[in-house]
């Protein structure tokens, strides 16, 4: 009987992964194209992800109370709680990215290369994390961890570059490009962390070993 509940849980997590990845992709596209047409949809998706996170939370508690799961089932349920939080956060970062585009835009004239470069890596991490989760394949997780290092390096390098630009142009009043880029880079860096947390969960489900806290 627990299988019915686990299948439902798996289905909700699948829906959340689709909504979250779709939102992040749309938010990055919106930044690239300096467009706000996806704003409403991304806001709604973020709210929906929060709702689904609550649903996962309720379902996991019910499964634990009614079936006292053990071993892989128990690890899967615990991981689903963390993963649903992760997807909820991805939705929120997509929301924050489009919010930054909205507040600081138009950003047509900005140099977006550092954000675009980092977004490609982060999207790849996110998609790999979702694949690892769908297939419960922990052989994919190392690829995510390796890319996290790349993201961290890119993030710090970009911040230092922006600091130099700000210093050089300290009389220039319009820093919208630098501020928006900094914010979005931070959101992307957090998304990469959550991709790693998803990878941690896949490892935990498969091996029972917890990953060191980041």
């Amino acid at each position, binding site marked *: 009987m627990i299988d019915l509940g686990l299948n439902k849980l798996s289905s909700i997590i699948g829906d959340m992964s689709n909504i979250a990845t779709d939102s992040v992709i749309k938010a990055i596209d919106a930044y690239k194209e300096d467009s706000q047409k996806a704003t409403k949809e991304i806001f709604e998706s973020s709210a929906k992800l929060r709702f689904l996170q609550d649903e996962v939370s309720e379902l996991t508690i019910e499964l634990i109370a009614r079936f*006292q799961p*053990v*071993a*892989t089932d*128990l*690890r899967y349920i615990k991981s689903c709680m963390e993963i649903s939080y992760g997807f909820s956060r991805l939705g929120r970062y997509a929301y924050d990215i489009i919010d930054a585009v909205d507040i600081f835009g138009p950003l047509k004239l900005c140099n977006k290369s550092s954000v675009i470069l980092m977004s490609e890596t982060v999207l790849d991490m996110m998609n790999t994390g979702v694949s690892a989760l769908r297939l419960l394949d922990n052989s994919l997780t190392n690829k995510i961890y390796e890319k996290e290092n790349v993201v961290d390096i890119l993030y710090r390098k970009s911040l230092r570059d922006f600091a130099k630009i700000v210093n050089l142009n300290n009389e220039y009043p319009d820093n919208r490009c630098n501020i928006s880029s900094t914010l979005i880079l931070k959101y992307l860096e957090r998304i990469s962390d959550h991709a790693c947390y998803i990878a941690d969960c896949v490892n935990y489900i498969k*091996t*029972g*070993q917890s990953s060191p806290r980041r």
Partner: protein
Amino acid sequence: MDNILKTYMGGKKIDNLPSNNVPSPKNKSSILSKNEGIKLSISSLNAWFGTKHALKNIDIDFKENCITALIGPSGCGKTTLLRCINRMHEMTPGASVKGQIILDDLDIYNKGSDPVVVKRRMGMVFQKPNPFPTMSIYDNVASGLKLNGVKDKSLIKDIVQESLQGAGLWDEVKNDLNKPGISISGGQQQRLCIARALAMQPEILLMDEPTSALDPIASSKIEELISDLKEHLTVIIVTHNMQQAARVSDHTAFMYLGELVEYGPTAQIFKNPQKDLTERYISGKFG
């Protein structure tokens, strides 16, 4: 409960019960049994009912002052293992045992070892409460002492009270000690049987599905009692209730078809079993 148990364990000692003076064997298992924390060490244990091989090469160490749960599907050998530990198995016609069981430094299957002494060091509680039907509550607890030649009435009285306190039953029956043992509820009868076992001041308590015939409240009281008793005893409990094993035990051993499949800390067995067979059993996939 804790103070009561301390009173019980620190209370009257029985001096005139038979003791076993068989020297400890100089072999691998006796060295193992001297390891700190190991109360009972079993090695290469095999048991048969006629030609049926019921236990196959069991190696397991039971830690002192710990609760170990034996789990596994019906017929896997859990109860047979308990009955080998207290030398009841050999009393079944056609049954035989081979291997070694070391209790502290005593090889209980050594030719010079006295089964009566072995049984006295190990209390046993069965699936269904089985108080002696014709005896009062008091006499149920006192019977083992009397059978073992204890005649000091004052001593018996003290031990009966301490044993009933140790089993968490004293307050419920102290005014009804002369009533028949079977006049109380099922849960109380099971605690009476535990008191009866405690009266003999055992070092190990063997429990064979002690709550399977009880309602949830009575089961919960027994589980609390088991947890309290481990401060003074080593407990080995057979249970079909996975949640009970997870709740009360420190270590869990999973048996299947007469073999010990996996043994480890309970948290590990239930969160991250190393064997696929264990995982499938505890998840309810078979059994």
